[in-house]
């Protein structure tokens, strides 16, 4: 009887491992991420050309798709508009798992800032710049709390701002790309 239980558990463990490996490999070259797994290059969708958009429309988006380079990969990520500019967060930056999971943010910080963001099916070529200005951080923290933490109470906003100041959460502005020299 005990042997049968171990055999059933073994089969479930096998299926779990097979699922993780299969979906990871299946998604790594896909046009965008899946719910849980990073994807590859964002290829579909019109490439936006023109004046800087009004980013207020991102208030209605829970996630956007963000492609980074070196290596090319894409993931779903929160998005916040504040003061007419648009920002993305990266959390858990000081934890062991965060360092593995958020490798893309370290790559951006180390010198691969060019990204492509896909929102509502349109691709925007942008450049990520980490934000360190406390005034900007407070505005972004307020929007982050409002959209993703159940409301912008002073305590929640302060908690998020502290997390950013302490380096556990990184905030990047998605700026227009710099002109090539």
């Amino acid at each position, binding site marked *: 009887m005990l*042997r*049968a239980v171990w*055999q059933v558990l*073994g*089969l479930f463990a*096998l*299926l779990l491992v*097979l*699922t993780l490996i*299969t*979906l990871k490999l*299946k998604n790594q070259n896909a046009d965008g991420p*899946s*719910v*849980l*797994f990073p994807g590859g290059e964002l290829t579909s969708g019109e490439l936006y050309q023109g004046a800087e958009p009004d980013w207020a429309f991102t208030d209605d988006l829970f996630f956007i798709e963000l492609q980074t380079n070196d290596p090319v990969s894409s993931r779903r990520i929160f998005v916040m508009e504040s003061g007419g500019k648009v920002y993305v967060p990266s959390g858990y930056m000081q934890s062991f798992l965060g360092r593995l999971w958020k490798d893309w943010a370290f790559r951006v910080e180390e010198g691969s800032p060019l990204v492509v963001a896909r929102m509502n099916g349109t691709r925007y070529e942008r450049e990520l710049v980490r934000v360190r200005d406390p005034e900007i951080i407070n505005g972004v923290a307020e929007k982050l709390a409002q959209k993703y933490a159940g409301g912008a109470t002073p305590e929640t906003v302060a908690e998020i701002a502290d997390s950013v100041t302490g380096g556990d959460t990184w905030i990047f502005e998605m700026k227009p790309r710099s002109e090539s020299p």
Partner: protein
Amino acid sequence: MKNVTYIKLCGGVGLAWVLALLFIPPFAQLVEQLMLLFLSTNAR
């Protein structure tokens, strides 16, 4: 269950599972949603 039978069962079920994940997109999406549900339930 004998070891040989068990290994054959694991091989057959495992292969069918992988093929279903690769070639039946709704199945892969369902599995991912269940994993997400499990993760979000345990994160609370």
